């Protein structure tokens, strides 16, 4: 029943992308509405999926489609949704839609804004984002190992172009590093998947999950888990396989960063919950202590790296390493509580870090740099609303209860307090303590960042991007002096088109000195849903936990 919904979720953005290829010229005038319409339709379908989902049976895949695709390879077009993938599908559709909303209504300053038709290559951008959406949603829907892998790989290419074309100054290097690193990981993962296939003779994730590793010896399971795990760990990213992430995030355009942090990282962790742990339970037990150890190293390492970071976007990127450490720690415990925590932290991180990257993009767009010493502080005085939302997002990210960031971390730690029977408890207690200290460090770097950026008096006259007479003389001082690593690139691209300073809203706060505008309407449209969801999941965690709990209990069937 309703099997068409997952297919439609993939078909709508794919149709949108292919129409762009077929009739390039005629769609140009409606391009801004075009991406919005297709991603909006996808979001509507995702909401419909969530509305018609049978919550009493969240443990089993629903809306399944199972058609033979390439019989010679035993490849089937097998899609479905359960309690684990449903939140991620909706999150993906939502974030993509918000990205389009951000791009469509924005003015022409940011790189790749859809109104900047001359420099921004808007048609290519819409096409790239729609293809990206197909890959991301497909990854979360796939119930066939090879199909999962195909979607997993499809995502890389649009993301590569997103960074390489619309990125910052060092975009080429970052994009090449991103694609080579993740491709290398994927190759290892493919080997692991083929190992599973050769041993069990099936690629069906549901069947493999129900078999709980039957048909594979312990050694094979360990080998397969390690191979699949490495591939997923690169994407997550797990320490020490994370170094592609800061570069990619720093150079990617705002929407690229948002989707990278909000969805792409989730594909790695989702793979652990969907494939690695249920299909290879014995391998999971053997490798879980290593996974946990690398996870807590990542938590502390990421936090420390953030503490000494100068660039705001780079800091948020490293904070992802820390937060994903909590997710991996939750998986490593192999308990319902821990995996629930990991899945919760997954979604929460998507919302919060997505918001943080939106904010970092908005700051970079206004100040011309994301270098914190050059920003100079006092944002609550110059841009009070932006400063307030930044404070909110940072506080949510450091895990205050009542906001979404808390429950996942807390449940991960609770899982580590009492890990699965087969795991060494003493070791996981050490992990728990280190993770707890990492939470303090997380608070430290976010508060130091807020202190540096939002507090204090505005130290210098901030560079105005809204100039009365455009020209090269209006380059921001920071980039002219070569202070910020990203300053000149962003400044040069921003110099392309400038909006009129006379464009006013009914109420302009008096604090918008130097021509910088506080939060704009289109930014509010993109951010408010995230803020609301962070509050909702924080205040009512049951919403998500009651969805994932039965599914997690099923996937842990062999262990409990």
């Amino acid at each position, binding site marked *: 029943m309703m099997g068409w919904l997952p297919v439609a979720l993939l078909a709508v953005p794919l149709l949108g992308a292919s129409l762009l290829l077929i009739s390039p010229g005629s769609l140009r005038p409606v391009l801004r509405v075009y991406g919005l319409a297709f991603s909006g339709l996808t979001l509507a379908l995702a909401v419909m999926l969530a509305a018609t989902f049978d919550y009493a049976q969240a443990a089993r895949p629903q809306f399944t489609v199972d058609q033979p695709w390439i019989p010679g390879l035993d490849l089937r077009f097998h899609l479905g949704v359960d309690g684990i993938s449903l939140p991620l599908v909706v999150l993906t559709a939502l974030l993509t839609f918000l990205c389009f909303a951000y791009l469509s209504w924005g003015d022409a300053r940011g790189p790749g804004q859809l109104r900047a038709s001359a420099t921004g290559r808007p048609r290519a951008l819409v096409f790239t984002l729609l293809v990206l959406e197909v890959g991301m949603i497909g990854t979360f829907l796939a119930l066939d190992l090879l199909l999962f892998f195909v979607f997993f790989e499809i995502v890389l290419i649009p993301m590569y172009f997103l960074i390489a074309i619309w990125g910052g100054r060092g975009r080429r290097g970052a994009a090449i590093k991103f694609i080579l690193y993740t491709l290398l990981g994927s190759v290892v993962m493919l080997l692991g998947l083929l190992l599973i296939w050769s041993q069990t003779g099936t690629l069906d994730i549901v069947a493999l999950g129900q078999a709980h590793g039957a048909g594979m010896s312990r050694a094979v399971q360990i080998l397969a888990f390690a191979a699949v795990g490495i591939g997923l760990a690169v994407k997550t990213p797990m320490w020490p396989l994370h170094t592609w992430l800061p570069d990619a995030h720093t150079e990617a355009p705002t929407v690229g960063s948002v989707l990278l942090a909000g969805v792409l990282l989730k594909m790695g962790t989702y793979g652990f919950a969907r494939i690695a742990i249920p299909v290879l339970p014995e391998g999971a037990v053997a490798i879980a202590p290593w996974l946990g150890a690398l996870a807590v190293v990542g938590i502390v390492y990421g936090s*420390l790296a953030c503490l*000494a970071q100068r660039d705001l976007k780079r800091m948020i990127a490293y904070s992802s390493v820390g937060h994903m450490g909590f997710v991996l720690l939750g998986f490593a415990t192999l308990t319902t509580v821990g995996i629930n925590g990991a899945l919760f932290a997954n979604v929460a991180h998507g919302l919060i870090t997505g918001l943080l990257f939106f904010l970092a993009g908005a700051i970079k767009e206004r100040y011309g740099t994301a270098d914190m010493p050059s920003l100079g502080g006092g944002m*609550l005085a110059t841009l009070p609303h932006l400063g307030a939302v930044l404070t909110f997002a940072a506080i949510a990210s450091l895990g205050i209860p009542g906001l979404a960031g808390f429950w996942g971390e807390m449940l991960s730690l609770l899982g580590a307090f*009492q890990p699965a029977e087969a795991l060494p408890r003493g070791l996981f207690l050490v992990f728990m303590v280190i993770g707890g200290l990492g939470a303090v460090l997380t608070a430290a770097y976010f508060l130091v960042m807020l202190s540096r950026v939002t507090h*204090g008096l505005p130290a210098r006259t901030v560079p105005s991007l809204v100039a009365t007479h455009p020209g090269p003389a209006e380059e921001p001082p920071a980039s002219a002096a070569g202070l910020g690593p990203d300053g000149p690139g962003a400044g040069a691209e921003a110099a392309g088109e400038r909006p009129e300073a006379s464009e006013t809203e009914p109420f302009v706060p008096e604090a918008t000195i130097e021509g910088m505008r506080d939060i704009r309407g289109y930014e509010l449209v993109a951010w408010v849903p995230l803020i609301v969801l962070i509050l909702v999941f924080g205040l009512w965690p049951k919403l998500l936990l009651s969805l994932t709990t039965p599914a997690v209990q099923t996937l842990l069937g062999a262990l409990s």
Partner: protein
Amino acid sequence: MTIFPLLAVLLPFVAAFAGLLLSRRPHFRSPGTPETRRAAGRRRAAWFAVFPTAASAVLATWLAWGPGFAFLEGASPGEPVGRTYGTIVTGGIPISLTLQADDLSAILGVLVTFVALAVQVYSVGYLHDDPRYPSYSAFISLFTSAMLLVVYAGDLLVLYVGWEIMGLCSYLLIGHWWEDRANSRAAVKAFLVTRLGDVGFLFGIFVLGVSAGSFRIADVLAKVPEMSAGTLVAATMLLLAGVAGKSAQVPLHTWLPDAMAGPTPISALIHAATMVAAGIFIVARLFPAFLAARPTLDVLAVIAALGMLGAALAALAQDDLKRVLAYSTVSQLAYMAGGLAAGSDSAAIFHLLTHGAFKALLFLCAGAVIHHVGSNLMSQMGGLRRTLPVTFVTMTVGFAALTGIPPASGFFSKDALLLTMERALTGGRLTDAAALLLYGCALATVAVTGAYATRAWLRTFLGEARVVALPEPEPGTAHVVDVREAPRTMLVPIVLLAVPALLLGFAGGVHLDLGVAAISVVLTLLGGGVVYAFWRGDPAADPARVLGPFLGPCERAFYVDGLYAAVFVRPVLALARLVVRTDDRVVDGAVRGSGRTMQGLSGMLRLVQNGNVQLYVTGLLAGVLLIVVGAVVFA
């Protein structure tokens, strides 16, 4: 009535959001100049702030009406009023959303709501022309809600939610005047130090909850007799970390004096009367678990003994009036902790109540003084009894209660605490050394308390007025007003708080031990008398010179801050820089290195592909020859 605890929590919570979102829009349905519109927004925020808090106060009073002071009298616990609003599945032990008021919660709810109400009313006047008053009052509402959640929670994890949100509000309010970097630093420090303790607290909850199989407080307490001693000691020690952080006890006390950077009403509400008392409250809440863990009680006794005397000595040497009161808070909270360690939760809670009243009063009075003088420093005050008569009288009541002069409230509660500590000497759960240290320090602290309170009182209100021409105050200091006394919104809460500060001691029946009472009054008078004698000798000089060579260490609070900076803060920052370097050179260096290695290897292969046809043909022939030879040999 079972829904009252929920309503009491929700009303200020909703008010916080309303205050933040609705009062920030000056163009909202009102004509006029920007100034009048902003004033209208502020008025709206004031109503959002005061009314829900008042409603919560009524609900809390209603809830406390039945049990009254039953907890202080040691009566058998009554049936808690409240209900469970569902459970959150976690896959393991569920979290039950229970909000209820038992004897202990009921009286604390009254304290919290009334002090919060007094502070909200007072703030209307105190922050009269602060442009950020709406967010300020909204954060106080959020804090009130979180504290009530802690007080009424029936589940440890729900309690933890409120516990952490209080910390957040404390951070936001200490940093209210964020233009000054020092305030921002103080806010960050307060949050991080308490958060460090909170991690231990959370782990303590895990230990208790997992070994009891439930996070419900009632279930946990019911399972305490079955738990092993090791479990209980581990759990209570971990909880103690959170208690030390929140209640500013040694060794996590350093944030509280710096927290005085916040507006004075915040110091009264959060950093004296309610939030810092939450640590004491949680020990009383889980008191059976602590009583069963004797090593924890010993540790608590030593912490309390060191904290009460050290903080009192530090208070004696401070020049900043608010820092005097802050160290006094640390010292008084240590009294309560000592009472708990000595085995009486009712005496500790009794002192918590009276302290909440008189310390809030002292801070609000100090706010009025600072408002008038325009400076926090006592060296710029003096002779204020004529210009601020109402503040003088009420603050004298507050100091009397602090030092324990009869019949003020502090006299009775301190007497109950000292009695408990004395009894612990002969037959308690403490080891002899710990009990002796505790009682000795407590008696010494009584004298030092008398000394520092007398000093502050003399330097503020008596002597010659030291009027200094003041520059326009920086953000972060109070605003100077030219009226003789503070505005009515500030005076009314002060006068109303003076009543419980004076009379709360008679609550729950008077149980006085004359011997202990006599000792404590004599010690107080001794401490006060010495300071008075020094002051009489030279009213212009600081009587703190009584400390002699110890003045320096006391003023710097025994250099603990410097020690922590050297041992924790700087190494962590150095480690952070090391991580960034390592990440770039080693971890990413390996990645880049592998790329370069590949390029090098491919460069070697490229040598072969040089486009020289002769070389290709030579290679081809050599290959054919090799195959032929191989075929002949192996065939």
